[in-house]
């Protein structure tokens, strides 16, 4: 159930408020980002997000429901064809309000309300997934959380060790082949032999150390 709005209506009456909010929503979907007062931005947010939900549904009935608020067919088309696909992975929170300080003339607190069109970041998705996983494990086992964490850490450390072992032979081979090259050349072109051999070295320092060892 939507939360009832508190306080007086925007504008001079209910119809005026509907008109203001409809115009704000139209502008928002046309420009992606609008600057308005904080009060209007806060009132616009639930309306705009509901319209985005209709747009994600995408059928004709939803389009007609949106057209009752946003009267501009071009803007509705943009909402359904350009904005809705960007919001496909997002489960709510389609808009973002950022306060930008007070207006000069009447000291009204202003805000920027914008559509969040950038894709859901992978980091946040994984964090949410991990949180869900920990919740599930906590449900299944009360004490299961800490052993699982230590196990995962152990797994990570073993994989790291494996990687180190894999790297070591490559570096060693590069070092063994280094004496074939003239010492002065190796000194001047440290990176070159590695490139010529096609060996991918992550640390140029290791290579440098090896050549210096062979020289000594």
């Amino acid at each position: 159930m939507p939360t009832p709005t508190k306080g007086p209506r925007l504008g001079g009456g209910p119809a005026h408020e509907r008109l203001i909010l409809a115009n704000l929503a139209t502008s928002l979907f046309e420009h992606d980002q609008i600057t308005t007062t904080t009060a209007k931005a806060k009132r616009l947010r639930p309306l705009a997000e509901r319209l985005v939900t209709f747009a994600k549904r995408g059928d004709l009935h939803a389009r007609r429901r949106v057209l009752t608020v946003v009267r501009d067919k071009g803007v509705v088309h943009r909402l359904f064809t350009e904005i809705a696909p960007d919001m496909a992975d997002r489960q709510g929170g389609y808009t973002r309000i950022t306060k930008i300080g007070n207006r000069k003339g009447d000291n009204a607190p202003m805000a920027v309300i914008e559509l969040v069109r950038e894709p859901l970041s992978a980091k946040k998705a994984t964090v949410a997934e991990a949180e869900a996983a920990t919740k599930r494990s906590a449900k299944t086992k009360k004490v299961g959380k800490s052993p699982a964490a230590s196990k995962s850490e152990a797994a990570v450390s073993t994989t790291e060790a494996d990687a180190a072992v894999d790297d070591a032979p490559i570096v060693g081979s590069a070092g063994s082949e280094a004496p074939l090259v003239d010492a002065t050349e190796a000194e001047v072109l440290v990176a070159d032999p590695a490139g010529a051999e096609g060996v991918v070295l992550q640390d140029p320092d290791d290579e440098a150390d090896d050549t210096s060892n062979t020289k000594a």
Partner: protein
Amino acid sequence: MAVPKRKTSRSNTRSRRANWKTTATTLTSCPQCSAPKQPHIACPSCGTYAGRHYDVAERSEHQG
């Protein structure tokens, strides 16, 4: 119509007005440009908030 019976004395007026106080605005420093800014509001000197930039948030001296 009800009207005050006595003129409010200078003492009463002044003691009432002595309690009109102002409070200092809470300020933090911008992580981007380290200028003072209000918390939860985009920085007025560089216009950034949470790593995003807003042109409309930038204020010159005359814009207040």
